[in-house]
């Protein structure tokens, strides 16, 4: 890519992202009482692969990073009317393209206006209304959901409506299909809808639909803009997800099936987690996932990950994971060890 094109990508991202972040920063001036929480985050990551040896490359959507989250609510005489969240980080990932390991990642950047109890509209950068990713927080964790396979991204730019229908929570979202960066080309878009039983009980289930033309990107980053494919990929998917608290075990299911470019695609994920008795600090989780796409030479990928987490202090969590990836195609099998130190805590 030429330097001019590079600068162009940077300008595209800056033109849209920075003004939106300024609007978010000004959200507390919306009036009424404002209550906010400013949290800081940091992550250190090293991994070993039996193919590539030791590296500091990003893995499982994590990188070496420093960041913050600014979350708040504005309320008036009749209650909350505005919620905002800005979560961004400066990250280092040597595996990024263009010899540009440093990047700014904007994860959450949204404003949500309450239309009434149980009804909100949201605008900005947030999770599409599809799958388990909408229900769990994988921002700092090694274990991820099917979002990257089924949707192609964990967050996207656009608008959403959240409401209730009887006992179900509903959400529909219209987004631009570019994921972390802001780029719309080749008619890219992403429309998603999800209905779920409310969280908080011992069992929760959700169903989702997705149709869109999403851009494939290299490098998880917002600034500079990721490298995008010239053409969008058409996706139509249906998904089901569930969370079940079975005694001391926590189980999660995420499944999706549909078409990518008129070719079949199907995948599933099962995750089981349990704390060690008499300690909140140590937790072990195992995840098994499979993803198959007809158009990728009928490759199937299987992955098994076992992750142990130890909460060292109120903010610091240490994680170690072993992941075994098996592929029935051209991608070689790989076993990886990943070590992560992750901090998330309220700013002083």
């Amino acid at each position: 890519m030429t330097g001019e094109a590079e600068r162009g990508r940077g300008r595209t991202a800056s033109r849209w992202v920075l003004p939106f972040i300024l609007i978010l920063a000004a959200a507390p001036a919306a009036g009424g009482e404002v209550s906010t929480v400013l949290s800081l985050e940091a992550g250190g990551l090293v991994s070993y692969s039996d193919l590539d040896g030791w590296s500091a490359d990003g893995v499982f959507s994590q990188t070496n990073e420093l960041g913050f989250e600014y979350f708040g609510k504005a309320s008036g005489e009749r209650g909350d009317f505005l919620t905002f969240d800005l979560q961004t980080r400066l990250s280092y990932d040597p595996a990024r393209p263009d010899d540009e390991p440093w990047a700014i990642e904007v994860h959450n950047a949204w404003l949500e206006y309450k239309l009434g109890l149980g009804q909100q509209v949201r605008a900005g950068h947030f999770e599409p209304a599809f799958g388990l990713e909408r229900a769990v927080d994988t921002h700092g964790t090694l274990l991820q959901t099917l979002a990257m396979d089924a949707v192609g991204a964990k967050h996207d730019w656009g608008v959403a409506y959240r409401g209730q229908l009887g006992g179900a929570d509903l959400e529909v979202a219209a987004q631009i299909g570019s994921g972390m960066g802001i780029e719309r080309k080749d008619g890219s878009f992403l429309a998603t809808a999800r209905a779920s039983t409310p969280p908080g009980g011992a069992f929760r289930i959700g169903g989702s639909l997705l149709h869109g033309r999403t851009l494939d990107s290299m490098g998880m980053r917002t600034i500079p803009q990721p490298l995008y494919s010239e053409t969008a990929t058409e996706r139509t998917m249906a998904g089901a997800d569930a969370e079940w608290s079975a005694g001391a075990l926590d189980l999660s299911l995420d499944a999706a099936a549909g078409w990518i470019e008129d070719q079949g695609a199907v995948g599933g994920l099962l995750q089981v987690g349990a704390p060690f008795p008499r300690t909140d600090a140590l937790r072990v989780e195992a995840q098994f996932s499979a993803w198959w796409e007809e158009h990728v030479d009928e490759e199937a990928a299987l992955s098994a990950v076992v992750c142990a987490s130890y909460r060292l202090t109120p903010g610091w969590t240490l994680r170690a994971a072993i992941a075994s990836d098996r592929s029935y195609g051209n991608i070689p099998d790989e076993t990886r060890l990943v070590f992560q130190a992750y901090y998330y805590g309220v700013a002083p």
Partner: protein
Amino acid sequence: MRRHAMLLLALACAAVLPVAPARGAVGCTLNDPDRDIQKLFPGATGYRTSFVTIAERGGKDLAARIEKRLGDRLDPVYEALDVPYAYYTVLKGEAVIGYVHGVNQKGKYGGMQMILATNTEGLVTGFYYQKISSPEAARFRDKAFTGQFVGLRLSDFDRFRSGSEEERAASPVARIKDPSTKSAEDFRATLRGVMKNLILLEELLRASGGQK
């Protein structure tokens, strides 16, 4: 070479991370606040959310007062002074009709999230576990158990913890029976969590005038 240098940087980063100063963890917020508020207060038309920490409302002195009243130390990891607690002040029109507030409480099999609804006088009007990991979780979640906390107030727990033998026996807290067959530890943790929740409501919100 550059790759190795960066690897060293990452390793150094990982090595120094654990010795960084500890700060707060994130407190217990409602997973689905609009629906939860509607369920706990069917007449509600809205709510105001506020985030409050022990550190900002009195720091170590306040923490010592809370520990004395609770009769137990606050856990330095899970009950740190800068943990932000979320308080939902429930409104009917512009009038305050109650509060919803949650705490994290260490149980035998990990953290429990315990949500209380109280009226403006501090009387418990609702209680449920937003999260509980236990082989007997269903027994604890059963309304036959959680319903026994409705109608209690902080003074009932005060009498139960530090009153005379007669006062302890007379406290309605003494009549709450452990619903489990072999999870007494989680039952005790539940009593502690509910009491802590009511103390925090008193100290962090109501003592400062609450939200009108």
